[in-house]
């Protein structure tokens, strides 16, 4: 399974190691890990809501699109939902390719799409209340470079 949507924590090192070991013919492996940040201070946790069924299908479709668009030997997507404390990995992607350009581009492509098109919604729960995180124009605009 190379697209996983899960509430359980995952171990970045274990995932990168296993992914890398499985890539025959790759000269380049790129991994990206997104981590819960306490930007303003006082963050108790981040609550990630998702759309069961659609989330898995959308993330897998993006992974397949990356495999089609770039010359890769493999790609991995892991994304958590539920309650995530500051410092916890939220998600990761890993890409492997014969050449580094494809591996980097595919990882950025997957991140840009997952940010704005995978059905996840983040809510920040702080000591003083809770609020939904707004989508940013920058994340939306990042998609433009792949069209």
């Amino acid at each position: 399974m190379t697209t996983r949507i899960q509430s359980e924590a995952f171990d970045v090192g274990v995932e990168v190691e296993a992914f890398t070991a499985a890539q025959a013919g790759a000269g380049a492996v790129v991994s990206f890990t997104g981590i819960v940040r306490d930007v303003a201070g006082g963050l108790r946790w981040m609550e990630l809501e998702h759309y069961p069924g659609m989330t898995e299908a959308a993330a897998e479709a993006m992974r397949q699109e990356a495999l089609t668009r770039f010359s890769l030997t493999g790609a991995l997507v892991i994304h958590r939902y539920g309650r995530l404390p500051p410092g916890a990995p939220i998600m990761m992607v890993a890409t492997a390719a014969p050449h580094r350009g494809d591996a980097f581009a595919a990882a950025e492509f997957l991140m840009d799409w997952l940010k704005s098109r995978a059905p996840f919604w983040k809510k920040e729960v702080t000591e003083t209340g809770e609020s939904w995180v707004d989508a940013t124009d920058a994340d939306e605009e990042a998609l433009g470079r792949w069209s």
Partner: protein
Amino acid sequence: MNVRYFAWLRERIGAASEEIETGAPTVGALVDELRARGEGHASAFADTRALRVAVDQQLASFDAPLAGVREVAFFPPMTGG
């Protein structure tokens, strides 16, 4: 038809999903019907430019047809990653 809500839409409407009998030909027509269901709905759907919609779990537009559709979901712009 199963209508689902996520994030602040779900909170404003006070339900994660509703089973709805409708003859609405498009998503937009369905939104007009939903707005009439009460204050929560009216508030949630006040500005559809701030919303996204999925029809049978595929992102769609508000003029998408609903014939044969089993599930429609409304939500704010996604913030994954």
